């Protein structure tokens, strides 16, 4: 029902949750601008947007996963592995165009591995991906040999730091990715199937939806988006550190939940995720600038997740009881 109603809305039409997120972003910016003289500068704004690129792409995939009743806690390390592949190609003076393909390819492959375990093996997503997280982390260490992959050539950056028709390439890529995911979600049977599986996998299966195919595909899509994120990561920082992506999964889950996508399934907001990512990055950057040590960042993110979900649970309950008490 809600899926049908949502499919009528436009690409950028906003609901109450998204408006309040936008207001929260502006409010946070206003407060931090007063609190810190270094906050409201052009350089800082660019930093915040720059830091959001990877999380925006990973967040789009995580939105699909959570709306489907799935999750992938290994996604940050998947980005790390894709980044290592890209870095190795660049380091061996490979063509930047090969490097461009390598990221999404590795992401898709690892998405297939995750899907094979979680979907084909019928293992709960959280436990399966937690196990894979351990395996991938060791793989990152083994591949890097405990050292950073650094001093990579700037060929990829030269390619991605340009503008097309005055629009920076990262913004263009994110817009295209957003549009494709939005179209898939709202204008194709895949989207309806995904939301139906999120509501109830059992009912979706009984009504003839190809549950396994849709779930498998979603993990692969998430992998591809993460691979693209890895490309931007390597292009910008030109190194791969051993702790790459260690908080990406938590940040992405927090952004999706902030954005109003329901992990109980059936409700999904891509625009909410985008605003959730921006709010998260604005908060993290602002807290750092007013002197809160970065060690507190995971605490803030965790409190945001629990706080938003707790608030939703309480506020969902109140109107319901009032409604039930009201005379018919």
């Amino acid at each position, binding site marked *: 029902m809600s899926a049908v109603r949502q499919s009528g809305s436009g690409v950028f039409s906003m609901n109450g949750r998204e408006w309040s997120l936008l207001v929260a972003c502006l409010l946070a910016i206003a407060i931090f601008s007063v609190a810190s003289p270094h906050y409201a500068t052009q350089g800082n704004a660019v930093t915040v947007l720059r830091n959001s690129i990877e999380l925006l792409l990973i967040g789009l995939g995580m939105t699909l996963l959570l709306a489907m009743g799935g999750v992938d806690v290994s996604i940050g390390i998947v980005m790390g592995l894709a980044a290592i592949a890209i870095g190795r190609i660049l380091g061996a003076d490979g063509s930047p165009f090969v490097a461009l393909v390598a990221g999404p390819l590795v992401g898709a492959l690892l998405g297939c591995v995750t899907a094979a375990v979680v979907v084909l093996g019928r*293992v709960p997503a*959280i436990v399966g991906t*937690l196990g894979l997280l*351990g395996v991938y982390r*060791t793989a990152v260490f083994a591949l890097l040999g405990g050292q950073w992959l650094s001093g990579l050539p700037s060929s990829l950056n030269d390619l991605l730091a340009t503008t097309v028709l005055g629009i920076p390439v990262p913004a263009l890529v994110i817009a295209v990715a957003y549009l494709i995911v939005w179209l898939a979600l709202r204008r194709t049977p895949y989207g309806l199937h995904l939301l139906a599986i999120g509501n109830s996998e059992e009912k979706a299966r009984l009504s003839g939806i190809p549950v396994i195919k849709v779930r498998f595909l979603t993990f692969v899509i998430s992998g591809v988006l993460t691979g693209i994120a890895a490309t931007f990561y390597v292009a910008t920082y030109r190194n791969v550190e051993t702790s790459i992506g260690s908080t990406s999964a938590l940040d992405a889950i927090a952004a999706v939940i902030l954005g109003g996508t329901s992990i109980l399934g059936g409700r999904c907001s891509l625009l909410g995720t985008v605003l959730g990512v921006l709010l998260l990055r604005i908060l993290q950057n602002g807290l750092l600038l007013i002197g809160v040590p970065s060690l*507190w960042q995971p*605490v803030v993110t965790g409190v945001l*997740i629990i706080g938003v979900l*707790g608030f939703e*649970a309480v506020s969902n309950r109140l109107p319901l009881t009032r409604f039930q008490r009201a005379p018919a």
Partner: protein
Amino acid sequence: MRTLRNLQGPALTLALLCALWLIVIVGLLALKPSVFNLGTVTTILQFSTILALVGLGQGMVILAGGTGIDLSVGGAVSLSAIIALLSLKLGLPPVLLPAVCILTGAMLGALNGLLVNGLALLPFIATLGTFFVYSGVALAVTGGAAQSGVPGWLLVWGRGVVAGIPVPFLTLAIPCFALAGLALMATAWGRWIYAMGFNERSARLVGIPVDRVRFILYALSGALAGAAGLVSLAWLGSGRPNIGQNLELESLTAAMLGGIAITGGRGGVGGVFAAVLLLVTLKTGLLQLNINTVWQVGIVGALLVFVLLADRLSQRWRS
């Protein structure tokens, strides 16, 4: 072969675990004969104590079903140890240190129970959130530095060895497992846990206080994490804010390897105990072979995935 096929449930799990354990030991002996002596056994049991306590709580939470899982155990271990030591510095009498440590853990676990029960959040999301909050607070409050100030008498308990067996293992891990096993087998509460894990709806219909049992299990998991934090203090002599690292993965692997079904209602704590010993033997063996510790997390993770897939496959064969 026929006897193996006739074995079912817990007995089969235990038999397979013992076989695996023997393979690990024989493999290690073949690679490095000097590995196993009494000192190594003591080390293995010492390491096992922490994982055994945490794995027990994790196993009980999963056993009760309702997609129950406690990802926050590692954070609870770190944070309860740190809070206990910091409150000592604020003037708490040292005698109360063990009580404060376990109580703090119980309160952290009760918060999980409140989120899962009272607010009806999905367990994996709620405890993922609290995991980052607990471990993050432990790191941020201390700035990542180890905290000193553990009283001497606690070290006597934590580092004591009787006949090659560490005292904490003897006085904490074994009694906890014995009590839990007894409670699961012989008390109404234990049967309730199986019943709600097997089918929550019918458990509610026959009048089992599902919510209360679940809340208590989360609090218990937290209290056991607090006890594990206490063991780490007494053994290492300092409070390390990252002592609980990777415990969520290891405790999950121990519970799954020990034959507890991820959907709940099937399995027992005896298997978890055997799985903990197997895991720690494997880890210690790898350490002795000078294999980098970063390989441990990968091997434990691979083991978790393997066990889950093997469980599904064996179900398909039987049906």
